């Protein structure tokens, strides 16, 4: 099964939830894959220290125009929906960073003047996290890293999703927001955990994340991090909107301090292991019932 973790905005504790859920499940001996899809700022590895065993480049194929064959017919320029091609004087210019690599220009060029050339945009690394404090199973780990200055994160997310394992519990840690890379992460998941915090900002962003999962028709539930008494109105809001609150993580200086040092809740504070497992059990029936909305 695939569980995606999303949040509407950053800094709410997505990484915390993804990493701790993975550790708790692996501690039970389950086959777990943690895939960090926040390719702009991947952080899960900081908390898990995986042993990286493979690294592959992710490339996009962008057009290169052969000036000897090109007769400036403009078919490619007119076709390109992203304005990545432009006629400048007596040649066609290519703006790599605007290209989405759809391949249309090379396919449509009547003179076969367009060749596609791979350019790197980032990489995917995979490895293993050795069984933690509680023994159990190793976690298989993957993350993607977008190159600096490169705008397109989504193709790397797509590549990462090829690593989803059939029999395993796959935990996909998404990036912040609800834009393209996050949509791509969450798309097709069996369940989506929405992590939020009890502030007006948190609520505002939760609304956006909720619209996203509803649009994608994915069963979902909420984790409130930095929980304060009364939940800052979030408990009531979730109840009114029919969204289950699966877990509350209290606001405690101790937890913030563990997190700031890269230490994990389930390993340092034993009762959290049981709490994360209980949350998982709440999610699983949804899967068994064939993805009925939570």
């Amino acid at each position, binding site marked *: 099964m695939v569980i995606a973790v999303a949040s*509407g*905005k*950053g*800094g*709410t504790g997505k*990484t915390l939830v993804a990493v701790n859920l993975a550790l708790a499940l692996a501690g039970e001996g389950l086959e777990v894959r943690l895939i960090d899809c926040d*390719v*702009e*700022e991947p*952080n899960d590895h*900081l*908390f898990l220290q995986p042993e990286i065993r493979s690294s592959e480049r992710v490339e996009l194929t962008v057009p290169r125009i052969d000036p000897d064959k090109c007769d400036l017919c403009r078919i490619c320029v007119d*076709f390109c*929906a*992203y304005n990545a091609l432009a006629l400048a004087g007596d040649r066609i210019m290519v703006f790599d960073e605007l290209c*989405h*690599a*759809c*391949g*249309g220009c090379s*396919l*449509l060029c009547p003179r076969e003047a367009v060749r596609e050339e791979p350019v790197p945009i980032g990489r995917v690394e995979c490895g293993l996290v050795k069984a933690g404090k509680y023994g159990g199973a190793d976690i298989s780990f993957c993350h993607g890293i*977008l190159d*600096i*200055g*490169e*705008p*397109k*994160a989504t193709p790397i997310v797509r590549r990462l999703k090829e690593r989803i394992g059939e029999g395993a519990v796959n935990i996909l840690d998404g*990036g*912040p*927001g*609800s*834009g*393209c*890379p*996050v*949509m*791509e992460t969450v*798309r097709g998941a069996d369940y989506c955990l929405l992590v939020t*915090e009890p*502030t*007006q*900002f948190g609520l*505002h*962003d939760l609304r*956006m994340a909720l*619209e*996203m999962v509803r*649009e*994608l028709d994915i069963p979902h539930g909420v984790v409130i991090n930095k929980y304060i008494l009364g939940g*800052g109105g979030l408990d009531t809001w979730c109840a009114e909107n029919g969204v289950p609150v699966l877990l509350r993580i209290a606001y405690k200086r101790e937890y*913030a*301090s563990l*997190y*700031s*040092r*890269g230490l994990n809740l389930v390993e340092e504070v034993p009762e959290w292991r049981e709490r994360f497992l209980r949350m998982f059990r709440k999610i699983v029936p949804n899967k068994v019932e064939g993805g009925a909305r939570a």
Partner: protein
Amino acid sequence: MKQLVVLSGKGGTGKTTVAAALVELAGRAMIADCDVEAPNLHLLLKPEITKSYTLNVSRKASIDPERCTRCGDCVEACRFEAIREFRVERHACEGCVLCARLCPAGAISMEEPEGTEVFMGETPYGEMVWARLAVGEEASGKVVSRVRMEAQAAAVEKGYQLLVIDGSPGIGCPVIASVTGADLALMVAEPTLSGRHDLLRALETAAFFRIPSLVCLNKCDINVEEAERIKEECASLGVEVVAEIPYLEELAEAARLCMTPLEVAEGEAARLLRRLHEKVMERIGLPASQKGTLH
């Protein structure tokens, strides 16, 4: 007109709070919320909307089942695997139009999703532009560009000297659209292991686009060793840490109450924020406002 972009690598570091303080202290500034996926600045500055319009930036393919002959040309052509069972999965479609162009039956048309809304409004500190993305809108970089463009145009027209841009998190498409061409980037970072990691990626991104950066360490006392490490790394990169703001309950309270920091902060917090404002203004080459220098 000078453009200051406030960035954070990842969210949750207090970027919006700092941006709001800078706007408030500037007294008069044009404001652009370029965090279009999680726009929060308007919650603090409470602008009165003066104008809004709908923006369509992306298109999605749609197949008419009546006309489709199931030849499969579109399925084969689409590199984003957006067509399954002769239906377009809207979220995967990148709107390249290739399928529509190739379909021999003329069965494919392009549709525009629900519009994204762009807002302009008046705050007590200046005018502001922000946006609300349509559900499923994926072209957030384009929306960011539009928000910035509107703000720049209005700033020039109305003679603003400063444009404050609340940037997007990350280092990808929307953040590139918020950072390129800015005069100065202020990075708001928190001293955690992941915070340091994100800050370095954000600094590299700004350097890639040749934007000078300053760093504001927020909640600097939550992990003293990490704070030291960040300062060392900034020093070795030649990036100045212009403020170290401890975790102050009054700032957290301001955010909870949806008030700007200086509506609530007194004493220490106010002093630190004023000092930050002065340093930022000095670096960007504008006089610190009266409001900023009054103690």
